[in-house]
């Protein structure tokens, strides 16, 4: 029994996206596809422990779901015809350098730019990731009913506005791919550093899900350097997860982390991806540069061995692509290690980031190193007031309380 339960869990993880995607394409309706996929798994849960696991579980699920769908659609024949017309129309004949796969169509549909970012995240986790509505609601600390409405609304818009189940036009492809990657990165970041005080500070379930989805997207977009870069970035960040939170629930800064607790396997995989991108000779995008920065960090045996000139050079490259204040703030943190806190502080001070906790945390750290403890304390206070993550608040509070002076 337990064995069958494990098999069903594994098959769910491996086959859900393919099942929903195949059904969506054949039935022409994402909502029905989701419902039938869930139905097929519900039948598997009843039948497999009795009948045994079928030799090809994916095919069994597809057949079962389609049989269910046909039963339902016979009752609504007209609806089927209409949606078939709507969805089958969209077949892009141009070769786009991407794998023609129903799951990729599903990803593009869920991450469509006509949907709100919240809706894209929720739909991607539901339709591609196979997470349940309660699971997604918990992940984003939203009421289950509200999350259900969000997904229902998104599905209704897909249907009413005829968001196509297909790969984008060639000229839209770069923007659409980076839209997909942005959704995956947001999911990862929510797990990497949860945004609310009531949440677990770091959540391996969400980061693992983001990595799994990014692996899939990377496999479907083999020629896309940014998909590879994003995967590498996630792997190199995930490799440090165990070292990032202390036993007492405090975030551990990079310079204090136990590097022996880093996951060597993930680091090796991330480094290999970064090396392959460098060898491609193509100009890197932001995820590839961020991955390269993380590769430099994870390459150093100790914090003091970090090749800071390399980190700053990579940030220079990133600033040219994205001169946003947050990128310049992160660059300044590396500059502090290379040219000292005074140079870094001068670069940080004028950044328009007054509402961003990391801006104040960075200033606090630099001011501490310059011996300006009163100003440092005030900056810590601002950072603590703005930070939502419990482990981060704990870390900042300890650092503030360690300051010398009154």
């Amino acid at each position, binding site marked *: 029994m337990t064995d069958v339960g494990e098999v069903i869990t594994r098959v769910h993880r491996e086959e859900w996206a393919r099942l929903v995607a195949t059904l969506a394409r054949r039935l022409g309706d994402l909502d029905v596809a989701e419902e039938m996929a869930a139905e097929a798994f519900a039948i598997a849960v009843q039948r497999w422990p009795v009948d045994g696991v079928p030799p090809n579980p994916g095919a069994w699920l597809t057949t079962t779901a389609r049989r269910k769908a046909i039963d339902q659609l016979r009752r609504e024949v007209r609806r089927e015809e*209409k949606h078939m017309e709507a969805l089958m129309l*969209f077949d892009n004949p141009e070769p786009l350098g991407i794998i023609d796969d129903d799951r990729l169509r599903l990803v593009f549909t869920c991450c*469509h730019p006509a949907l709100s970012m919240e809706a894209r995240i929720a739909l991607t986790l539901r339709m591609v990731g196979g997470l349940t509505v309660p699971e997604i609601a918990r992940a984003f600390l939203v009421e289950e009913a509200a999350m259900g409405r969000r997904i229902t609304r998104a599905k209704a818009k897909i249907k009413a*506005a*005829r968001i*196509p189940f297909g790969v*984008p036009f060639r000229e*839209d492809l770069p923007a659409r791919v980076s839209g997909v990657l942005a959704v995956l990165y947001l999911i990862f970041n929510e797990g990497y550093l949860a945004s609310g005080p009531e949440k677990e500070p770091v959540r391996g379930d969400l980061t693992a899900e983001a990595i799994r989805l990014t692996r899939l997207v990377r496999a479907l977009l083999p020629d896309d350097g940014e998909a590879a870069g994003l995967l590498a970035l996630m792997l190199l960040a995930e490799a440090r997860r165990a070292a990032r939170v202390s036993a007492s629930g405090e975030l551990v800064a990079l310079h204090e982390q136990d590097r022996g607790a880093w996951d060597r396997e993930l680091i090796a995989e991330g480094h290999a991806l970064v090396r392959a991108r460098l060898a491609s000779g193509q100009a890197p995008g932001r995820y590839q540069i961020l991955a390269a920065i993380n590769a430099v960090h994870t390459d150093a045996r100790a914090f003091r061995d970090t090749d800071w000139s390399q980190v700053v050079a990579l940030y220079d490259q990133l600033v040219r692509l994205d001169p946003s204040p947050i990128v310049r703030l992160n660059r300044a943190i590396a500059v502090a290690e290379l040219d000292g806190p005074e140079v870094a502080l001068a670069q940080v001070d004028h950044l328009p980031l007054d509402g961003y906790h990391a801006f104040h945390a960075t200033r606090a750290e630099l001011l501490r190193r310059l011996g300006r403890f009163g100003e440092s304390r005030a900056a810590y206070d601002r950072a603590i007031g703005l930070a939502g993550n419990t482990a981060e608040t704990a870390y900042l509070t300890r650092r503030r309380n360690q300051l010398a002076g009154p």
Partner: protein
Amino acid sequence: MAQYLLSVLADTTDLATPEEMAAIDVFNEQLQADGHWVFAGGLGSPGTATVVDGRDGQPVFTDGPYLESKEHIIGFWIIEAPHLDVALRLAGLGSKSCNRRVELRPFLGE
């Protein structure tokens, strides 16, 4: 094919400039040539509107638009497209031609 309403949004009642008119003409011709055209028109300013309530038999007339808002609709296209990606592309071209933001909205399916 589905139909979409492309509403042109503006916060002034300024009419299209000659350059904008010329660009709109080019866009309209393209819509017709490609089979997307259904209908289009410009609208009088919100101040020219009359709200009519005929629900109780004798219609009641109220001068002005039903909503006072900063932005209003000054024109529209109705286009035909197989799906949203095509409609979005046309909406982008329409917005560029009239030099204003547009709202794209599907008609209810039959």
